[in-house]
C-alpha cells in the first residue's frame, strides 16, 4: 500500500526519510561488498530488481474483487536478505513513482520504511524462524510473504495515524486498522499463496 | 465459408498511436492463409484480435460468421475454437514438463482426467514429440519447443490454428518439419493462418496471401497474384521469392521470354525452364 504523494505533512515526510536512509545506506554497503567480490552478481541483482517491479505491476486477483499489487518484498528478502532487499525496494519504489505514478516522492521515505524495511525484515525473520523450527519451507514462504504483506499495511496504518492523530492516535489507528483489516487480509493471503505457487514452480523447473 | 473474418478492424495502442487501420481479413474453411509483412507491421497485433485478447477500437471480428462478444463465456468458447501459437515458444511453454504444458489448455477447458491424458498423448504423437512427456521444456531444441507449443494448442482441438512466425529462428530442417506438419493438419481439414516474412516458403503452402504494412492490408490474393506486383512487395520491405527474382532478372535484363506470373517455387520454375529449352 503506497502512501500517495502529498498525503503526509512535511514533518512526517522528513521523519521517515531520516529513519529510512541509514538502513538503505547499510544495504548499499552490503551490496557494494557483494558486487565487488562477485562482479556477475550485479546484472543478477538488477534483473531481480526488474522482476520485483514487474511482479509489483501485476494485478493480483482477490476474492473481494478489488485488485492489489504483490509487494514482492517477501521474495526479495528470502533470496537476498533484508538489507539488500531494502535497497532494491527503494529503487523499485522510485521507478513506481516515475513510471507508474504509484506512491510519491515526498512520501518515498515512509514507503521505503513500510515496504522496503518492515516488509523484508519481517519476511526474513519469519522465514528463518519457520526453517529453524523445522517447518516446511513452503509454509515458511507462505507465512513470510503473507505476514510481511500484512505488517507492511499495519506499518502504513501506523504512519498515517501518527500523521493524523485525530482525535487521538489510538482512535485514528483503530480506524485505519479497521479499513485495512477488511481490505488487506484477503490480499495478504493472496500474496502469500502466489509466492508459494511461484516458489513451488521454481523448484520444479 | 469464412470461418474467421475481420471487418474494418481498427486498433489503437493505449497512448493513441494507431496499430491497425481498416483491416479486412478472412480465412475460408479448410484453407491455409498467409499474412505476410515486415517486422512491426501489425501481424501479431492482428492475431491477438482473432481470439479476443485484444478488442478492436472499431470494427468487428467474426468467428464462424458470429461477431465476437467480449463477455467471459463467449470469449472462452472463441478461445477453444481459435488457437494461437506464439512466435517465441519460450513465452508459451511454462509448465515444468512437456506433458503438464500440453495439458494446461485441456484442463482449463474442464475436461476430465482421462480425456486430458488421451489428448496430451495424441497431440504429442501428432507433432512427433511422443516420448518427451517428462522432459522439462527448457531442455528441448528450438524446433522441438515449437512442436510442443503446437501440441499445446492441438490438444484443445481448435477449428482454426493461428501461428505467428512459425519458422522463425529454426534451421532449414526444423522449419521444413514444422511446415510439413502444418500441411498435414491442413490436409486433414484444419483451417490454418500463419504470419511470416519468409517469402520463399509462403508460395509452397498458402492458398491465399495477405500483405500487411504499417497496419494496413495493402494486397491480397493467390501467391501468384500477390508476387506479380513486385512494387508493392518491395515497398512493404519484402522481396520476391529467390526463384521468382531469378526469372524476373532473366526477363527484364536479358529479355528472355518469361512472362508474368513468374514461377514462385522450384517446381514451377523447373516446368517453365524446361518449356523454354524444348522450344
Amino acid at each position, binding site marked *: 500500500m503506497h502512501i500517495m504523494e502529498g498525503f503526509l505533512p512535511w514533518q512526517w515526510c522528513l521523519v521517515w526519510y531520516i529513519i529510512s536512509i541509514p538502513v538503505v545506506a547499510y544495504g548499499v554497503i552490503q551490496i557494494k561488498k557483494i558486487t565487488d567480490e562477485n562482479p556477475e552478481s550485479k546484472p*543478477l541483482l538488477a534483473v531481480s530488481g526488474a522482476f520485483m517491479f514487474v511482479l509489483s505491476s501485476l494485478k493480483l486477483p482477490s476474492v473481494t474483487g478489488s485488485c492489489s499489487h504483490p509487494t514482492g518484498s517477501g521474495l526479495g528478502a528470502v533470496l537476498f536478505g533484508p538489507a539488500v532487499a531494502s535497497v532494491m525496494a527503494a529503487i523499485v519504489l522510485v521507478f513506481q*513513482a*516515475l513510471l507508474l505514478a504509484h506512491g510519491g516522492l515526498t512520501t518515498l521515505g515512509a514507503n521505503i520504511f513500510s515496504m522496503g524495511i518492515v516488509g523484508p525484515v519481517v519476511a526474513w525473520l519469519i522465514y528463518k524462524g519457520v526453517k529453524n523450527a523445522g517447518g516446511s519451507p513452503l509454509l515458511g514462504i507462505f507465512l513470510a510473504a503473507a505476514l510481511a504483506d500484512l505488517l507492511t499495511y499495519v506499518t502504513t496504518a501506523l504512519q498515517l495515524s501518527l500523521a*493524523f492523530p485525530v482525535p487521538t492516535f489510538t482512535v485514528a489507528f483503530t480506524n485505519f486498522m479497521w479499513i485495512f483489516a477488511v481490505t488487506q487480509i484477503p490480499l495478504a493471503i493472496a500474496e502469500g499463496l502466489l509466492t508459494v*505457487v511461484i516458489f513451488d514452480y521454481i523448484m520444479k523447473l | 465459408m469464412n470461418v474467421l473474418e475481420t471487418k474494418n478492424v481498427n486498433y489503437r495502442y*493505449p497512448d493513441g498511436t494507431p496499430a491497425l487501420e481498416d483491416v479486412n481479413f478472412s480465412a475460408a474453411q479448410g484453407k491455409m492463409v498467409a499474412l505476410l509483412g515486415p517486422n512491426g507491421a501489425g501481424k501479431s497485433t492482428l492475431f491477438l484480435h482473432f481470439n479476443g485478447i485484444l478488442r478492436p477500437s472499431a470494427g468487428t471480428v467474426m468467428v464462424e460468421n458470429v461477431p465476437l462478444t467480449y463477455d467471459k463465456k463467449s470469449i472462452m468458447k472463441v478461445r477453444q475454437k481459435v488457437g494461437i501459437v506464439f512466435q517465441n515458444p519460450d513465452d508459451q511453454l511454462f509448465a515444468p514438463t512437456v506433458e503438464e504444458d500440453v495439458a494446461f489448455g485441456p484442463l*482449463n477447458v474442464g475436461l476430465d482426467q482421462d480425456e486430458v491424458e488421451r489428448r496430451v498423448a495424441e497431440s504429442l504423437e501428432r507433432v512427433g514429440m511422443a516420448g518427451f512427456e517428462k522432459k522439462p521444456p527448457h531442455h528441448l531444441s528450438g524446433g522441438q519447443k515449437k512442436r510442443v507449443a503446437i501440441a499445446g494448442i492441438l490438444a484443445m482441438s481448435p477449428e482454426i490454428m493461428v501461428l505467428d512466425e512459425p519458422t522463425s529462428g529454426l534451421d532449414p530442417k526444423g522449419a521444413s518439419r514444422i511446415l510439413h506438419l502444418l500441411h498435414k493438419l491442413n490436409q486433414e481439414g484444419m483451417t490454418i493462418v500463419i504470419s511470416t516474412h519468409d517469402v520463399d516458403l509462403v508460395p509452397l503452402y498458402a492458398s491465399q496471401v495477405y500483405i500487411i504494412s504499417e497496419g494496413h492490408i495493402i494486397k491480397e490474393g493467390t501467391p501468384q497474384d500477390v508476387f506479380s506486383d513486385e512494387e508493392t512487395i518491395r515497398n512493404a520491405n519484402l522481396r520476391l521469392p529467390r526463384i521468382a527474382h531469378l526469372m524476373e532478372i532473366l526477363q527484364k535484363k536479358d529479355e528472355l521470354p518469361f512472362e508474368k506470373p513468374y514461377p514462385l517455387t522450384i517446381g514451377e520454375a523447373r516446368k517453365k525452364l524446361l518449356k523454354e529449352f524444348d522450344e
Partner: protein
Amino acid sequence: MHSMFENTLDNYAHSNGLRETNTLFKVIFAIATMLVSLASTSPIVPLLITLVISFLLIFQAKIPWKFYLKFLAVPFFFGFLTFIFMALFFGVGAHILDLGIFNLAVTQDGFNRGLLLFSRVLGGFTCMAFLALTIPMTELFSELERFKIPQIVMELAMLMYRYIFLFLDEGINMYHAQETRLGYSSLKKSFKSMGMLGSNLFIRTWIKGEQAHIAMESRCYDGSIKTMKEPESMRTIGARNLVLLTLFEVGLVIGLYFTGNFTLF
C-alpha cells in the same frame, strides 16, 4: 492492451511537447512546486498548482486529455475518499452537518483537514505526473548524478530500467499465451496461471542476467559501469527561464502566506 499489467508512462515521457525543454529546468520546477504544495496550510495554492500543471501537461506537453483525465481520476478518487473519511471520522470541532444516522456528523476541523489533504494530494500528484510524463527516465539518471547517489545504486537502477521493459514485454506475451489456453478463467486457475507466469519470468530473468554478464564481459566489463555524461549546469536553463521559474515559485510562496489561514468553514 495488457489488462493485467500496469501501463508505464515511458512512452509519453519520450515523446511529449515538452521533451526538448531543458531537463534541469523541468526537474527544479516540478520539485519546487511539489514542496510548495506540501507546505500549504490552505487548499488554495495546491488547487492552483493542480490547475497550472494540468494546463501545462495538456496544452504544452500535448498529453491526450482523455488519457490525462483517466490518469488523474486515481488521485482524485483517492483524495475524495480521504476527504469524506476525514470529514466524518477525524474531527473534534463543531458539527457543520449532522447526517442523522449512526450519529455521523461532518465536523468543521475534519472538513477543513479533509479538503486540505485532498488539495495537497492533487497538487503533489500533478507535480509528480509532470516529472513522469515530460522527463524520460534516461535523462533523470544524469540529473540524479548531482545528488551524489552511490555509483552502485545508479548502476543497478540503469540496468533495472532496461530490464523492466524487457520483462514487461515477456510477461505480457506469456500472459496472452496463457489467456489463449484459457488460463485465468477462474480464481483458482488464475492463481495457478499467475504462479506459472511468475516463476517462468523469474527463471528467465536469471538466465538473462547471466547472458547480460557474458555480453558485458565481451566488451571488457571490469566490474563498474562508467558513464560519460556530466550533469547539465544551471546555466543551461537560461536567464529568462530562471527568472520565470523564480517569479512563479515566489508568487506561490506569497500566495501561501496570504491564504494560509483560509478555510471554507
